[in-house]
C-alpha cells in the first residue's frame, strides 16, 4: 500500500513520451507533497501528536486540570487489579470472538447468493449493503434500543412464537446477543469485498470441477475458499480490528454507563468513562496503548498464520 507521493501519471495530452528531466521530477514531487500537505498536517497534528502525548500521559496521573504527575508503570499495573477493566476485556473479547466470524460468514453467504446472475441483483446488492452505511450511526443505535426494549418489536415477535424473553436491553445475558446481531446486520462492507473477490475466480475452474463430478460443497472448499483466501484474510483482519473499537452503539444503548450489570462495558467505553467521568486520563491513556499493543499483536499473529492458509495467485504452493 506504499504509494509514492509522486504524481506518476503524466498529462496524456503530451505528444510523445520524452525522457523526464530530473528537474521536472522534482517539481512533480513538490506538487505531490503540496497536495498531501493538508493531510500530512492533519496526520501529524491530530494523530501522531496526540498519540505521543497519550503515550506520555499513560505513565502519569493526570486529571485533566492539574499538570500530569509521573508515576511510571503504575497505571499499567493497576489495570490488572481492576475488576471493571477485566470485565471490559471479557465483554470485548466475547464480542470480537463471536461477532466477527458470524458477520463474515453472513457476508460470504450473501455474497455467494448475489454472485449468480439473476434479475434485480443490483437492487439486492444495494439493499444488503445499506445497513453498513447507516449502521454505525447514532440513530440506528437508538432504533436498536427501541426494537429490543420491553414490548418492542423483537419482544413481541418472539412472544408470538411463545418465547417470552422480555426486553433484551435490560437483561444482562441478552445484551451481548443484541450487540452481535447489530454488527452482523452490518455485513455489507465485507460482503461487497467478498463479491469482488468472487468475481475474480475464473468460471472454468467450477466448470472443470463439475465435469469431474464435484458437488457444491466440494467446490466451495476446494475452489472458492482457497481462491478467495486473500480476501477472507483481509476481511477477517479488518473486521477484527474494527470490532475491538466498538463504542457508539455501546455508549448509546447503555446510556453511557456500560450497564446493565456491566454487560455492555466494552473496552473503549470503559476507557472513555475512566477518562471523562472519573478524570483518570493517565489510566485511560494506558488502556488505549494496551489496546494498540494487543491489536498489533493479534494482527501479527494473523499474518504469521496466514502463510498456511492464504493463497495468492502466482504463489508456487
Amino acid at each position: 500500500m506504499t504509494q509514492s507521493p509522486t504524481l506518476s501519471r503524466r498529462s496524456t495530452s503530451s505528444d510523445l513520451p520524452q525522457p523526464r528531466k530530473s528537474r521536472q521530477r522534482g517539481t512533480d514531487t513538490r506538487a505531490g507533497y503540496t497536495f498531501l500537505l493538508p493531510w500530512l498536517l492533519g496526520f501529524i497534528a491530530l494523530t501522531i501528536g496526540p498519540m505521543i502525548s497519550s503515550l506520555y500521559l499513560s505513565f502519569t496521573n493526570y486529571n485533566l486540570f492539574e499538570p500530569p504527575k509521573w508515576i511510571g508503570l503504575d497505571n499499567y499495573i493497576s489495570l490488572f487489579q481492576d475488576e471493571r477493566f477485566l470485565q471490559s476485556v471479557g465483554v470485548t473479547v466475547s464480542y470480537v470472538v463471536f461477532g466477527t466470524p458470524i458477520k463474515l460468514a453472513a457476508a460470504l453467504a450473501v455474497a455467494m447468493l448475489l454472485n449468480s446472475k439473476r434479475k434485480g441483483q443490483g437492487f439486492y446488492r444495494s439493499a444488503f449493503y445499506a445497513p453498513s452505511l447507516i449502521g454505525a450511526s447514532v440513530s440506528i443505535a437508538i432504533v436498536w434500543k427501541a426494537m429490543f426494549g420491553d414490548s418492542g418489536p423483537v419482544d413481541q415477535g418472539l412472544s408470538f412464537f411463545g418465547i417470552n424473553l422480555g426486553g433484551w436491553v435490560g437483561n444482562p445475558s441478552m445484551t451481548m446477543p443484541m450487540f452481535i446481531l447489530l454488527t452482523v446486520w452490518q455485513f455489507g462492507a465485507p460482503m461487497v469485498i467478498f463479491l469482488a473477490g468472487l468475481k475474480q475466480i475464473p468460471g472454468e475452474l467450477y466448470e472443470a470441477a463439475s465435469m469431474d463430478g464435484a458437488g457444491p460443497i466440494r467446490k466451495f472448499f476446494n475452489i472458492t475458499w482457497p481462491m478467495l483466501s486473500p480476501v477472507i484474510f483481509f476481511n477477517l483482519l479488518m473486521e477484527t480490528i474494527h470490532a475491538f473499537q466498538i463504542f457508539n452503539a455501546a455508549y448509546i444503548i447503555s446510556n453511557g454507563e456500560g450497564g446493565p450489570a456491566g454487560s455492555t462495558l466494552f473496552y473503549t467505553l470503559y476507557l472513555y468513562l475512566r477518562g471523562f467521568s472519573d478524570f483518570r486520563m493517565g489510566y485511560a491513556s494506558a488502556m488505549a496503548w494496551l489496546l494498540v499493543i494487543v491489536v498489533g499483536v493479534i494482527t501479527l499473529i494473523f499474518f504469521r498464520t496466514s502463510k498456511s492458509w492464504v493463497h495468492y495467485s502466482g504463489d508456487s504452493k
Partner: protein
Amino acid sequence: MIDRRNFLTTVALGTASAAVLAACGQPSPAQTGSADNPVTINYTWWGNDDRAERTRKAIALFEAKNPDIKVNGNFTDFPAYWQKRATEAAGGGLPDVMQWDLSYLRDYGQRNQLLDLSTVKIDTSAFDKSLLPSGQIRGKTYGIPTSTNAFAVYYDPAKLASLGIAEPDGSWTYDEYNAFLTEVGTKSGGALFGSSDYTSVWWMFNIWLRQQNIEAFTEDGKLGFSKDDLKEWWNKVADLRGTPAIISEERITQLLPKSAFGSNATASEVTWDNFMAGYLGDSGAKELKLVPVPSDDPDNLGLFLKPSMLMVASAKTKNKDAAARFIDFMVNDPEVGEIFKTSRGVPASKTQRDGTTFEGTDKLVVDYEKSIEKYLKDAPEPPIVGFGTLEASFKRISADLNFGKVDVNGAADAWFKEAEDLIKQNA
C-alpha cells in the same frame, strides 16, 4: 501560459495557507454588548423536557429585559452532562454560565475552572446566610444556590387508595417502610412495585449515616464510615430484593430515561423533593405527596436543606459581566420563581421566594420543607473531590447487587476499593 503543475502547486499552497490564516483570524468577542450588537453567552443545564421548557421561558424573559445580551441554551441528562463538562474543561471551553451540582463543585472549583463569583456583581443579600457557604470553597464563592431541596418519600395517593392501603403519615422506621413496600407489592399482585431499591440511593445512605451521627467524610477527606456500616445498609432490603416490594433492575434499565416512579411502575420513591414537577409530568398522576424519610430515631431524621443546584460561571468566560447579570437574574428575579415554581427546589433567595405564588403540588413541596424545619441540620459543606464519581459507582454497584451479580459483602468490598482508590488518586 500557465504551467499546469506550477498552477496546481500555487493553488494547493494558497488553499492551505488560507485555512491557516482563517484559523488565526478569529475576531475576539466583544466585552460588552449593546441592543444592536448584543454579546452572546452560553448557558447549559441538565434536566428533562419540563425543565427545558421552563428554562427557555426564563431565558426569553432575560433577553427581553436585557437586550444587550443573548443567551444560548443547551441541555442534556445528568450523567452525560458531567462527561461533556469534563471534555470542555479539558479543552478550555466551558460554557459561560452553567447549572451546577454540589457533588462536582470541588472537582472544578478547586481546580480553577470556575469563576470566583465574589469578584463580580451578584446580589446575595436575600439569601439565608447558612446556605451560602455550600457554594464556597476556601473563601472563594464558586456557586450561588438557586434553591434548596430536601430528601423525602414520594407516594401516589391514588395508587395506594386503589390498593386499599392507608396513606403513610411519615413517621416510620425502616422496618415499617419495608412493610409498606411489601404490602404494595403483595396487594397489587406484582403489577405495581413498592419502590426502587432505596438502599441504592447514595444520598439516602448519607442521610442514614447522619441519623446515627456519622459523617460520611472526615475533615481531611477520608471515609468516615466503615465497610460494616455499608453492609448493614445494603442488607436492610436483603429480603425484599427480587420480590414485588422492589422493582427489578431489568425493568429500571428498560424504562430509562424515565424513572421507575415517573413511569408509574412503583408506588413510592425516596429522593429529592424538587423532583415533584418532573414526576408529575412524566407520570401524568393527578397528585403526588411527600412525607419524611424513615428513621429508627424519631428525633433525628438526618435531613438537611441542600442547594438543589447552583449557578456557576466558567473561569475563562470572556463576558464576566453578562454572566453575572444572568446568574443574578436566575437566582433573584421573582418572575423566574414564577416560571420554575419548585421544579428547581424551593427558591433560595427570599426575593424570589416571596415573589412566587405556590399552589397545588408546588405548595406541597414548600410546606414539606417547612414541616421538617425542626429536624434540619446544617447544610453540608461542598463534598470531597470525586464525590460525584463515588455517587455514580455507588449506584452502579447497587445495581449489580440487584442483578444478583454480587452479594452484599462483595458489593461493599468493590465500592470500598473504588472509593479508597479514588481518594488516594485525588490526595
